[in-house]
């Protein structure tokens, strides 16, 4: 099984364009993820990397180009149990308390007919929670967790359907070192089992050894597609923490009634 055989692409974007409001965010990007491949999507804030993955899952409408998932046009793709998605979040909590089990179980709905979870489904949910090292806290409320643990819950939720393809939007954002190690180990295990991964990352960080290929976006265009870029200068120093303020225009104003 060759890794970049185009016939084997699990995700394929061709000349995809998208706008947010009237502002073009993607200006015709090409992106392939082969079966068993781990691809990192890199770029500065506002480069369009989050928008690109959100077009794949259908959260952002495209204005041109083609998207295929497992060889099927995105609009006709129905087999969502094969896809595990980790949205960009700082919390797994909603407005009402929920246990880790309850949140992770919603990731199993793609395999559960009529939303009825059988014994096999509950076992899969328990396995997913165990994979991220939260088995002893499964009955705890997610409100009681730390930032890194929230991210682990979100990843367990994505793994609950036992997907072949993982799409993760900045899974390492705001994650403490202990959780980063758990996440990297979880991901390594999934990749060893043959999962394909598309990761949006701000920087390569602890996941670097896993990454086969990096695609760099800038202003909605692909500027690099190949081996992961090596960190240089100060960025290459061990323990370098890439911290800088995020631009405010990324978040729309929320009024509560509309969200």
């Amino acid at each position, binding site marked *: 099984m060759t890794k970049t055989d185009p016939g084997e692409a699990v995700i394929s974007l061709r000349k995809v364009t998208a706008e947010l409001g009237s502002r073009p965010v993607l200006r015709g990007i090409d992106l392939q993820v082969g079966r068993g491949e781990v691809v990192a999507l890199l770029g500065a804030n506002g480069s369009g990397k989050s928008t690109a993955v959100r077009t794949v899952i259908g959260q952002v409408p495209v204005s041109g180009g083609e998207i295929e998932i497992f060889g099927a046009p995105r609009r006709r793709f129905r087999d969502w149990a094969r896809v595990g998605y980790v*949205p960009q979040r700082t919390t797994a909590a909603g*407005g*009402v308390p929920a246990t880790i089990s309850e949140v992770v179980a919603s990731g199993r709905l793609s395999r559960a007919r009529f939303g009825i979870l059988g014994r096999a489904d509950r076992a899969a949910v328990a396995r997913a929670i165990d994979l991220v090292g939260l088995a002893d806290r499964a009955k*705890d409320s997610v409100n009681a967790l730390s930032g890194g643990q929230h991210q682990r819950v979100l990843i367990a939720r994505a793994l609950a359907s036992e997907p072949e393809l993982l799409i993760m939007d900045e899974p390492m954002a705001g994650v403490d070192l202990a959780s980063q190690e758990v996440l990297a180990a979880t991901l390594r295990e999934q990749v060893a089992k043959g999962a394909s991964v598309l990761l949006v990352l701000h920087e390569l960080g602890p996941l670097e050894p896993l990454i086969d290929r990096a695609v760099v976006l800038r202003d909605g265009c692909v500027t690099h597609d190949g081996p992961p870029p090596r960190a240089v200068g100060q960025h290459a120093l061990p323990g370098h923490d890439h911290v800088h303020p995020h631009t405010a225009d990324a978040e729309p104003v929320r009024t509560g009634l509309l969200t």
Partner: protein
Amino acid sequence: MEILEYAFMQRALLAAVLVGITAPAVGIYLVQRRQALMGDGIGHVAMTGVGLGFLLSTSPVWMATAVAIVGAVIMELIRWYGKTRGDIALAMLFYGGMAGGVMFINLAPGGSNANLQSYLFGSLSTVSEEDVTAICLLAAFVVLVTVGLRRQLFAVSQDEEFARVTGLPVRALNLLTAVTAAVTVTVAMRVVGLLLVSALMVVPVAAAQQLTRSFAATFAVSVAIGVAVTIGGTATSYYQDVPPGATIVLLTIGVFIALTVLATPLARRRARAAAAAAASDPAECAVPAQPAAKG
């Protein structure tokens, strides 16, 4: 029990119990998606339905249901497409609905705002045989949706974007939530009144949260609180001759305050337990092991 001897009180109590069950059952999903005030908006819009019911001499309950459903669907559509101007569109919908209600009821033959009063704040003596039938049917629908589709509604209300990737029909479920909330508003309208409906959707859920850690438990406790306060409030209203809607809502807020006070030691104990559980990821700074000083 003297209170059960009168047919109108039997009807009022039955309606009250159904309100106590349905309002928190829908409200929990609204609170979960942080749309706690949605019920209030639907209540405003439903007033136009009540007014139309009087004007056209049809059942105000069914007319209010129809108008509330249309209003809730419009609100959901505004949420999809509205983006930046959405909140202003919603405000117009709410106040337009309220103004429409007042206008229609004044135009109705023999109508006056006195008739509207019982719909706005609830009334026990006016729950008719026909109302009870409507309330029972609507309540059955609400329970069927909120219990039968609880996993789907939980997923969509917890994280809409993620729910889309599990293949759930997110838009259909959002519309269903809106319609169910609209139906609940009209179920509750006769007992607590349109202007106070939202309190019964939100406050029992907020009160239950003081004690619970899971969604399932929050659901059960908030319905239990809902039933307790609607029965208690209806009985108090009968014996003390005070308006039922206001009594029920004040009672619910009382329960919320009582549970919050009672839960404070519980929360402390849980925080300690959580800290102990997190001992593997140390909560405090550990002094790094220094290499032994030479010499």
